[in-house]
Every structure is written in structure tokens, then in C-alpha cells.
């Protein structure tokens, strides 16, 4: 997701790569390792599709008649709305922060990325509690203190879901466009001005088209995320494929209907992913030449404070309000006797325990994903040809596997092939690895692409074999890049909900699951401490990634 930037870096750094296509022989152990990783990632998907294809005809018929069309419309509509919303909001915010004289730019640059540390469903919990008609905190406050009967827009349904997901997914597009705006050669825009286009025309005819490949890739990844989203849509009562699959899994004994729906979802997602990978390939040749010079900020003049208000409103809605409300609930929970008892119990065996579960499962997933990504990335970067690229693309199907689908495929797989895994938290870790492998692969590829192959060749010429060189030269040199990949996997695994919810063995709850369960029961003061803790934990890798400029 966030290593879109990384992906475009791969493109920029690839000049030397293309010269050596076909000149090096594939290393066999490396190829075997990469094949094994690809198999690990692709098997659940293959098995799932098999199950969908072999599902009973009557199940297919029932779903086709009743569910598929509605779900498809719902899902695609939400995907389109959120994608559009995030692109508009993300690009606008990035432009304001990077290219204008907006007051407080250094602060906004960071604050606008902070929503990445909070799972969207937590934001949704807060907004629902605040805004729900009649029962919401805001309408009730207005009615009780001011006597105003204000119902406001309902946070539920299509518009609520579109709004909420836009608010919490825009940072992907924002960070991507901000980096693109920063890297944009000022001379391009000046050239357009000198050729007779005014500032507005220049934005539309030059700036945005130049940013387009990266933006499109970002938009498509948002689209994939919308497909995968479960918690938010379920909470906001809008039924998409993911929510329907979850419903199937929790409402029915028979898995074949869930497998069919998952198949449909994966087909949509694969189509989106294919476009994204294609764009990523094309984006590589953009912006030739060096002599980068920052563009002078555009004076906003009269729009300065309205723009400030917009940026402040976004930050208010995505950071300040959720954190304040969560903090207030936490305090309320600590003051209330029964809730305190509940929290106390949770603290004895719970909150710390859940934190520990979250940290070790996400941490193990991050380490595993990055370690497994190295052979795949190494092959794709150092031996570029269709086999290695194909493997690398195969490892990125995780993007197209929403959490519920990963969960379902692992449930099916552990039933038939790997019963020993069942009941172990390792299944959850495995789901994280499969789902977040793409981020690790892309990060590792970006890190490798920046390492001149001559360093490895020097190692080989000094009498070390390729494995030895990989371990003693390559890995230490790309370690910071690998760490960034690990941070990314850690961050996203920490926030993962649906797969954890479905796969967790008894007694293994993570913070995200605790927040979800408590919030689902409407026990906000109990959900809040875990939500705050989760957000704090996610903020650490996020800060690391932001500092590296890698996100």
C-alpha cells in the first residue's frame, strides 16, 4: 500500500537493471526458495477458487438469484465512491501541504498521515457513537442542553461508509501525491507557464497528468482496501462482498456459499490488482533527467484560511475527535464501578495479554513476511525476466485477498490438509503473512533495486558463493529497507480485523479483536482503552516509516 512510493522508486532506479536482462543465469536454490514462497502465498487462493468452482449447483443458483447482483452493485459503488473521494481529498491535501503557503505546513505534513495508525472501524465506532440519529452523543447533547432537535446526516449506509472510508484511507493517496509533488521538477510547470498556460491550466494539463500513473496506482490500492474492508462496513450497516462473506461464515454451516462469494470478490480484486501492476510497470519511465529544484509555493491569498479550515477539519475528524472521544471513554470506564471491574479483570488476564498477542503475532508476521520476500525480490530485481517477475506478481495476490477470504481459505485448508495448524495462533500469523506479503515484496524489491549489483559482484570475485554474498553483503546493506517493509507489515497486521476474528483460536484475542467485540456490543468504555493502545502501538511503526519517507 504505502510502498507505492517504494514501487515508483524501483522504477526510477531501474536503469542499470534493464541492461542486464538475460545475462545472468537463474540461481537454482534461489528459484526454489522463491517458488516455495509463491506456493505458500498462492495455495490458499487456489484452493478457495477450487472450492468455489466445485460448489453445489443449487448454492450457485441461490446466490445468483438472491445475492450476487446486489452485492456486486453495493461493492462496486462503494469502491468507486471511496476511490474517487480519496483521490480528490488526498491530492488536494497533498497539494495544499506541499505546494502552497498553507499555514502550519510542517505540522500538517505529519498530522495528515496519522489516520493510518487507526483502523477505520475504530473511527467508525467513534463517529457512529457521536452522530447516530437520536441516540448519538451530539444529537442528544444538542437536544438536552440546547433543546435543538438536530439529527444530522446519518452515519450509516452507503454515504456513511463512503465518508468514513474516505476519511481513513485518504492518507495512502495523500502520502503518495505529497511525495510526487515534492519530487516533481519545478521546471515542468514553469515550462507550461512559459508556453502560455496559466497556473490552473498548468495543474490540469501538466501536473496532474504527470502524477497520474502513481495516483492511479494509489487509487487502485485504495479500491483493493475497500474490497477487503469488513469492520467499517459491517458497523455502518452497508453490505459489501466482504461483509456478506463474513455473514455467510458466521451464519451458515456450509462453506460453499462463502467460497463462491469469495471467488467473486477475488475476481474483482484480481482485476484491480492487474491494472495496478500494469500501471506500476508503466510508471517507471516518468520524469527523465536530474536537476531537481523545488517549486516555489503557490500563494493561496484569500483562500489561505479556508484551505486551513479544510485541512484542520480533516485532522479534527480523523485524529482529534476519535482520540479525544476514546480518551474520554477510557476515563469514564475508569470511573465507572462495573466497567472498572471489567477492565481490571481485563488488565489481570486481558489488556496486557491482548497487547502481547497483538505484538507478537504482528511482529512474527512482519519478520516472516520480510524473510520470505527476500528470495522473491532478489530474483525479480537481479534476474529480471518473465519467470521472476511472474513470481513476484504472484506473491502480490495478497493485495487481492481480503481478510475474510484469507481466513476462509485457511479454514478450508487447515480442515483438509493441515489439521495440526488448527487451534494454533500460528494460523493467524500465516494469514497476516499471506495477506501482507506484497508489502514486504515491494519494499524488498525497492531496497534491492537501489543496491548496485557491482557490490555483490565484488563479493563474488573475492571468493564467496552467492548465498554467502547474499547474507554477508546484500542483506546487511538492504537491512534498513527490509526494516521498513517489516514495519509496514507490522502496522497493517496490527490493524487487521476480519481474518483475526475468524481464525483466532479460543483464548487468543488481539487488541483489534477486543475493540471490535466490545464496540459491537456497544460497550464503548471497555473498547476505548484497547483502541487507544492499538493506535499508540500502530503509531510507532508509522512514525518510523514517515521518518524514512518510505510511506
Amino acid at each position, binding site marked *: 500500500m504505502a510502498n507505492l512510493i517504494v514501487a515508483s522508486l524501483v522504477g526510477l532506479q531501474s536503469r542499470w537493471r534493464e541492461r542486464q536482462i538475460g545475462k545472468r543465469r537463474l540461481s537454482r536454490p534461489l528459484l526454489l526458495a522463491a517458488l516455495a514462497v509463491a506456493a505458500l502465498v498462492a495455495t490458499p487462493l487456489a484452493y478457495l477458487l477450487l472450492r468455489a468452482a466445485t460448489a453445489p449447483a443449487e448454492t450457485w443458483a441461490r446466490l445468483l438469484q438472491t445475492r450476487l447482483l446486489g452485492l456486486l452493485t453495493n461493492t462496486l459503488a462503494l469502491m468507486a465512491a471511496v476511490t474517487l473521494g480519496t483521490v480528490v481529498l488526498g491530492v488536494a491535501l497533498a497539494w495544499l501541504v506541499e505546494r502552497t503557503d498553507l499555514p502550519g505546513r510542517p505540522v500538517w505534513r505529519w498530522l495528515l498521515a496519522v489516520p493510518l495508525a487507526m483502523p477505520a472501524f475504530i473511527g467508525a465506532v467513534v463517529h457512529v457513537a457521536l452522530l447516530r440519529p437520536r441516540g448519538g452523543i451530539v444529537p442528544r447533547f444538542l437536544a438536552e442542553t440546547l433543546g435543538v432537535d438536530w439529527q444530522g446526516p446519518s452515519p450509516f449506509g452507503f454515504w456513511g461508509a463512503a465518508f468514513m472510508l474516505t476519511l481513513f484511507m485518504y492518507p495512502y493517496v495523500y502520502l503518495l501525491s505529497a511525495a510526487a509533488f515534492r519530487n516533481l521538477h519545478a*521546471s515542468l510547470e514553469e515550462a507550461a507557464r512559459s*508556453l502560455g498556460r496559466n497556473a490552473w491550466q498548468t495543474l490540469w494539463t501538466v501536473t496532474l497528468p504527470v502524477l497520474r500513473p502513481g495516483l492511479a496506482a494509489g487509487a487502485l490500492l485504495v479500491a483493493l482496501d475497500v474490497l477487503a474492508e469488513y469492520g467499517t462496513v459491517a458497523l455502518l450497516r452497508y453490505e459489501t462482498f466482504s461483509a456478506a462473506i463474513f455473514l455467510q461464515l458466521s451464519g451458515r454451516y456450509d462453506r460453499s456459499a462463502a467460497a463462491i462469494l469469495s471467488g467473486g470478490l477475488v475476481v474483482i480484486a484480481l482485476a484491480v490488482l492487474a491494472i495496478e501492476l500494469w500501471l506500476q510497470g508503466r510508471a517507471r519511465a*516518468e520524469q527523465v533527467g536530474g536537476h531537481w529544484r523545488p517549486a516555489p509555493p503557490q500563494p493561496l491569498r484569500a483562500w489561505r484560511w479556508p484551505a486551513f479550515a479544510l485541512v484542520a477539519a480533516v485532522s479534527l475528524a480523523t485524529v482529534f475527535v476519535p482520540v479525544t472521544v476514546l480518551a474520554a471513554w477510557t476515563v469514564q470506564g475508569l470511573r465507572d464501578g462495573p466497567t472498572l471491574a471489567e477492565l481490571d479483570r481485563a488488565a489481570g488476564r486481558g489488556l496486557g495479554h491482548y497487547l502481547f498477542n497483538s505484538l507478537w503475532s504482528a511482529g512474527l508476521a512482519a519478520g516472516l513476511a520480510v524473510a520470505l520476500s527476500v528470495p522473491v525480490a532478489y530474483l525479480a530485481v537481479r534476474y529480471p525476466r518473465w519467470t521472476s517477475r511472474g513470481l513476484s506478481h504472484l506473491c502480490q495476490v495478497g493485495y487481492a485477498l481480503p481478510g475474510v477470504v484469507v481466513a476462509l481459505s485457511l479454514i478450508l485448508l487447515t480442515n483438509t490438509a493441515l489439521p495440526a495448524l488448527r487451534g494454533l495462533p500460528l494460523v493467524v500469523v500465516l494469514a497476516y503473512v499471506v495477506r501482507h506479503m506484497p508489502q514486504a515484496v515491494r519494499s524488498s524489491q525497492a531496497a534491492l533495486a537501489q543496491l548496485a549489483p557491482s557490490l555483490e559482484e565484488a563479493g563474488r570475485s573475492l571468493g564467496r558463493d552467492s548465498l554467502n554474498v547474499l547474507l554477508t553483503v546484500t542483506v546487511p546493506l538492504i537491512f534498513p529497507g527490509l526494516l521498513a517493509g517489516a514495519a509496514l507489515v507490522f502496522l497493517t497486521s496490527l490493524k487487521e480485523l476480519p481474518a483475526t476474528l475468524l481464525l483466532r483460536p479460543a483464548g487468543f484475542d488481539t487488541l483489534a479483536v477486543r475493540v471490535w467485540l466490545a464496540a459491537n456490543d456497544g460497550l464503548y468504555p471497555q473498547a476505548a482503552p484497547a483502541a487507544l493502545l492499538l493506535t499508540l502501538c500502530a503509531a510507532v511503526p508509522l512514525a518510523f516509516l514517515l521518518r524514512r519517507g518510505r510511506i
Partner: protein
Amino acid sequence: MAPRHPATDECMPALELLDITKQYAPGAARAVDAVSLAVQKGEILSLLGPSGCGKTSTLRLIAGFERPDAGVIRLNGQTVTGPGHWVPPERRGIGMVFQDYALFPHLTVRQNVGFGLQGRAAARIQDTVAHLLELLGLRGLAERYPHELSGGERQRVALARALAPEPVLILLDEPFSSLDADRRAAVREQVRATLRSLGATALFVTHDQEEALFLGDRLAILHQGRLQQIDTPEAIFHSPATRFVAEFLGHTDFLPGEVTADGILTEIGLIPQRVALPIGAPVELAMRADDVTLEPARGGARALVLARHFKGAQNVYRVRLPSGRLLHSLQPHTLNLRSGTPVRVWAAAGHPLACFHDGQRVPAAEL
């Protein structure tokens, strides 16, 4: 510079700068310091100076990408920048070739060249683009994207794009600096031919004096934001206005001396040249290799040959004077001295040497 001509259209300069000053931050040095100059129609002016001298800033001020703190810029007599006047860059009619070419990566060569022609008839755009592509030898590349071009091709596309709207003035910002050395000469030649054949008025920024001499009808030399000298290349070469100009043009050693009644007394003897300075004033003389001669010394001399650079018909000797100062001397190839040979050195210019006091040229004294 001369004040503005009370203009007939004929002699009205295409570009005129009056006391243009730009300071990027309060307290910072002035990037452009009261620069005044004029470019006549059809003229190519080279703006030359080391990096950081303010030449690119000057260019950006002319293009309208920056606003000066003071001064006036006129294009064809019309004020585009000045107190109460501001014409945005897109309405100035100035073409610009950027150092990095700034070709739009999402557009083909044809679309790049036609970019500035929006609003004109399609047929006319097509003709103009075709003509320019032909002129610059880019005909076969029209449908390529910038990343599919070589450096030289990109350069020519950038020029074609800047020329397409028939600008009043074309600005070129270090246009050859991104090219490999072996490509440079050919591209340069083509650019000059194109500009000449179109009778374009151009202001060309470079830090490479060879390029400046090759391309410019006149040279303007900038240093620390100040205009040092503006004149024909010959005049500047023969008569540098400041020590900086002499030094920047290169191949010049500076020999300190002291004004005496009979001339200037230096380490290599008295140079019989009178200057309008009081006796005893310290000066520096600009000495080129052809102003200095030498012969093997027979005792007593303490100058030493350090190295000989064989240049075909001639040898250039690097000589260390007793003070440690270095001088260069051009000698026929027949004179062949080893390094370490003691020599006697004297000035034999046959013309008055440029003489500087406090960095400024000192005019010869009235006799």
C-alpha cells in the same frame, strides 16, 4: 548601462532590464544586484558566470517565475515587471529551454512541441510542429515519448517546443550541460544555426565560456549578482573590465606590482606602462602566456621551469618565480627546456597589459 533609447521601433531592444535586484531572503546576499542590460532584436546574448553568480535567477526574473525586489523589465518596450506592473509568465511570450529540458513525460514529442500552440487552428499547429521537427531533424521521432529519446534529441525537442509559439525572446538555461561532452559540439552547432536561421532573439545562460563565445553575439558577465561587463567577446577578451572577468576568462596569471614614476615595478622587472594611480599604489597585472617570455638563465636567476605542456606548434611553460608565484609562458616548440631549468622571465606583450587596482580596471594614464 545606457539609458533606454528614445525608441523608434527599429532600435528598441527586444529585452531591457533596468536595475533589477532580487534578494531571496532578508539578510541574504543579493542574488541579482542592480543588473541592467538590453538585448537587441535578433541578437544572441550569452550570460556568463560561475555557478551561483545569479545568471539563472536573472533568467527566471525575465521569464516571470520570480518577482524582483526592484527594477523594471521591458519586452519590446512594454513593461512586464516593474512598479505597478506584473505580467504573468504565460502572457509574456517568452520561450524557455530548461536546463533539464522539462519535457512533459506524459506527452509525445509532437504534443510537447505543440503544447504552446493551444487555441490556434489545428492545421496551423500541425504545420508549425512539422516545420520545427523538420528543422531540428526530429521528424522520425514525433510519436516518441521523452524517455525514449537520447539527451541530444531531448534538447532539440525542448528547443522546438520553446520556438513553436514564435516567442519575442527565447531564454536558454544551461541548455547543453546535461549532454555528454562528445554530443555537445554538434548539438550546439545545430542550436546556433536554428536560432540564426529564424532570426530569434535569445538570452543564453552558461558557465562555460567556450559555449558563450561560440553562441553569443555579445557576452554579459555576471559575478555575485552584479553585471561585470557586457560587450563583444573580442572586446571583453582584450579588455576585461574587472579582475574577475580577466580571471574568469582564464589563461591569465596575475602579477602584483607597484606604481612607480616610470611604470609598474614587478617581480620580473619594470613594465613601462603608465596608469592613473598615485606612485606606490599596489596593482595587479593580467599576464597571459603570450605576454610572458623566458630564456634559460646563466646564473643569478631564481625562476624555475616547473613543467612543459607540449601543444604541437608551441610549448607552454609553467614557471615558478622566486616569490613562489606561477606564470605561464608560450614559446615556440623549438625551445625545449626540462623542468627544473633555471630561467629568466620578462614581459613582452607588445600592448598595454590589463592593470587592476582593488579588482577594478585601471585606465591607462593620459600621457
